[in-house]
């Protein structure tokens, strides 16, 4: 028996009920709708149901799947009569089996209410006075309404108080795809995705996943919106400067699609929070701009056995890699056994980037995430996809699991630091008073834009340290400073690994300082 069906003959509830039996089910709830002999003061003798069956079955299946996802019930189904029915005949049957009665009742109620509102079924009543009329077509709007976990009852027409509600979010163009359909839409509504980083990659990922009707989206970003972000992160505008990115993004996405539950986490991904965040979602999209975070996410998804979509950009190029928790599937460390150090290859601040480059890679990440959630990636083999937006060439390189990469103990080789690598200061003055010598490792052109009061006398550009043109002093106590604390942290880790104990990185870099 299917999730939703039409019958032209009498319904057989006993037979349907058997199909819901399951050893894990501790209860069963059902609803039966019967033909009654009156409606709005008129005596009814019989009635006829007509349905737009192909569309109605899709929508009906979608409702049943939503109920299963929302209430966590074991099985559910709905059968509706079509054709001519006499008084007392069974018009519609809903059945739900579940571990406990509460979910079974709730899911049953949800299904019958939504079927009455959303499924295109028309009822013609034949009255005792010989007249007849089509009544009670409860399907509200042309577009089916889909719900997220924070579903509120709202329809595409004026509410009782007369104010026009926001129109329902219309997924019809993606539901129209045979591979998606109502069942695919229900899968998206039941899914949760964690997006780590709400920058150049994260913005399109968040926009497309929210628009597609993912049930719950988590946003992790500890940065604030900066003027230099706007050219490639058009979710933000000048009025948002200085506000936390996660909060601004959440605001915009809620306005974009209220079906989606948005959870903003105003923090950088760190060893302290990443496992709990990953555990709380079905899939992770990694959109940060540094190797440290990418490997942190890689290790967490390996531990949690969750799929993840990684991407990075450099000037006009990008790389895309999907991780799936399958025995033969390579992770980020399989491809890059020696976790690269941030700063050795350019990030957006140093190397420059045109907005559509991260936008292209972010759109590819959103696509890969949707494919995974919809099960459209069955034939896809592990690979690194390289996109060059200057030559418009795309190259897909087959990747294999590295037998030396221990997926059971991801990242075990990086030893925990005994002393904190990063120190936090509220102002530059406080940092000067710490007794540490401050060293600015930004490039000269970055320093050229410094406002008054932010001059740090000691300057060792990272590029010169990497090229070997300059050497970091081996003796002394230093606080290493860059724009956002990414390059400084990388250099600090490198110096610590050389045995230099008294070096620290300014957490969050100059961007994190107040005044």
């Amino acid at each position: 028996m299917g999730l939703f069906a039409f019958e032209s003959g009498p319904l057989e509830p006993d037979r349907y009920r058997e199909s819901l039996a399951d050893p894990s089910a501790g209860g069963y709830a059902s609803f039966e709708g019967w033909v009654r002999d009156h409606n709005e003061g008129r005596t009814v003798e019989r009635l006829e149901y007509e349905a737009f069956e192909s569309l109605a079955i899709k929508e009906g299946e979608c409702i049943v799947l939503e109920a299963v996802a929302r209430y966590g019930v074991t099985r559910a189904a709905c059968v509706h009569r079509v054709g001519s029915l006499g008084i007392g005949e069974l018009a519609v049957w809903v059945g739900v089996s579940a571990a406990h009665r509460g979910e079974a009742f709730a899911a049953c109620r949800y299904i019958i209410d939504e079927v009455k509102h959303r499924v295109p079924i028309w009822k013609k009543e034949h009255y005792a006075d010989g007249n007849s009329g089509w009544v009670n077509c409860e399907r509200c709007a042309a577009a089916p309404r889909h719900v997220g976990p924070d579903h509120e009852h709202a329809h595409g027409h004026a509410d009782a108080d007369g104010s026009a509600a926001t129109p329902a979010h219309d997924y019809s163009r993606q539901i129209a795809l045979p591979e998606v359909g109502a069942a695919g839409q229900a899968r998206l509504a039941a899914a949760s995705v964690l997006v780590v980083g709400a920058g150049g990659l994260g913005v399109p990922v968040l926009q497309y996943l929210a628009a597609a009707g993912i049930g719950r989206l988590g946003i992790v970003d500890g940065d604030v919106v900066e003027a230099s972000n706007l050219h490639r992160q058009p979710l933000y505008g000048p009025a948002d400067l200085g506000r936390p990115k996660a909060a601004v993004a959440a605001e915009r996405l809620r306005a974009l699609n209220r079906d989606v539950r948005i959870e903003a986490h105003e923090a950088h991904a760190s060893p302290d929070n990443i496992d709990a965040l990953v555990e709380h979602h079905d899939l992770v999209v990694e959109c940060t701009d540094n190797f440290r975070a990418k490997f942190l996410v890689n290790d967490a998804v390996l531990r949690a056995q969750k799929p993840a979509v990684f991407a990075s950009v450099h000037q006009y190029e990008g790389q895309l890699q999907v991780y799936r928790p399958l025995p033969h599937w390579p992770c980020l460390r399989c491809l890059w056994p020696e976790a690269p150090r941030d700063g050795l290859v350019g990030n957006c601040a140093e190397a420059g980037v045109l907005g559509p480059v991260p936008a292209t890679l972010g759109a590819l990440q959103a696509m890969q995430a949707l494919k995974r959630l919809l099960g459209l990636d069955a034939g896809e083999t592990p690979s690194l996809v390289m996109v060059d937006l200057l030559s418009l060439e795309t190259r897909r390189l087959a990747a294999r699991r590295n037998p030396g990469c221990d997926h059971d103990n991801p990242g075990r080789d990086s030893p925990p630091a005994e002393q904190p690598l990063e120190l936090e200061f509220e102002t530059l003055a406080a940092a000067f008073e710490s007794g540490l010598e401050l060293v600015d490792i930004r490039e000269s052109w970055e320093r050229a834009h410094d406002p008054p009061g932010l001059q740090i006398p000691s300057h060792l550009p990272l590029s010169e340290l990497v090229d070997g043109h300059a050497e970091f002093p081996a003796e002394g106590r230093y606080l290493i400073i860059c724009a956002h604390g990414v390059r400084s942290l990388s250099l600090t880790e490198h110096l610590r690994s050389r045995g230099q104990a008294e070096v620290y990185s300014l957490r969050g870099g100059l961007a994190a300082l107040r005044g």
Partner: protein
Amino acid sequence: MNEIEVQYFAVLRERAGTSREIVQTAATTAAELYDELAARHDFGLPQAMLRVAVNDAFAEWSRPLVAGDRVVFIPPVAGG
């Protein structure tokens, strides 16, 4: 001497000044070819930081090269 098609990405493309070139080389493995080209273009990135792909699949650095192979040197990329 073998004729090999080489493609560069990211920092290697910048250093080489081209995204693609055909090289005549006596190198017999991917590692030898990288050493030769790193010296010619002053790449400055150690081989251990890179991955190599031959004919659209990731390969070992010890992989023997034959005429007509397409070789891609891939640096890690972090921007976002």
